[in-house]
């Protein structure tokens, strides 16, 4: 299955792009995707725990199962206001 991964702020700097499409084994969870990304992107591996994640624009838990076509974003610490 394919998911769309979005990067913002410091994570975009780390990834070097705004978004990418990733192929994942069926049944993958949000935490599996984070494990893959933090292995590949050295800048992300410095985060000891998974940052907050959103699937299809809603906050989700790490164990949430992903589905084909999902929009996934790992969110750096927010700093609005």
């Amino acid at each position: 299955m394919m998911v769309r991964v979005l990067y913002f702020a410091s994570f975009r700097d780390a990834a070097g792009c705004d978004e990418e499409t990733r192929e994942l084994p069926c049944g993958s969870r949000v935490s599996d995707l984070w494990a893959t990304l933090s292995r590949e992107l050295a800048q992300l591996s410095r985060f000891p725990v998974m940052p907050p994640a959103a699937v299809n624009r809603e906050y989700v838990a790490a164990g949430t199962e992903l589905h084909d076509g999902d929009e996934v974003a790992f969110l750096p610490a927010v700093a609005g206001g």
Partner: protein
Amino acid sequence: MFLTSEPIDLAGFVREARPGDGAVCVFVGVVRNESDGRETVAIEYEAYGPMAESEMARIAESLSRERPDVRVRVRHRVGRLAVGDASVAIVVTAPHREEAFAACRAAIEGIKKTVPIWKKEIRPDGTGEWVDPTQD
């Protein structure tokens, strides 16, 4: 729409009170010229647009659900702002000041915690630094 790339029209934003309202509470966040002693000349705000919209709507709706006579309106800027520019404005109208102040405070604290917006402080030499409130 809660996000805007245009300057926030504060006067227009504050104008609308209903006949039963006795209080209008306004909070405006503005760009400061320093952060922990380091000079800041501008801030670039970035948002995960659609999610930021729905999170701000959720905050405003949940406050109005708690107190149906309280109305919360929010605008948040994105893009590059200069020192003194308004980055966020919250206007709460309510029958009395107590619930107006409380909802205004709850709205800004909620925004800072959950709305996916980030800011990069720009230094005088042109370099930028993403703000991470968890690293204070």
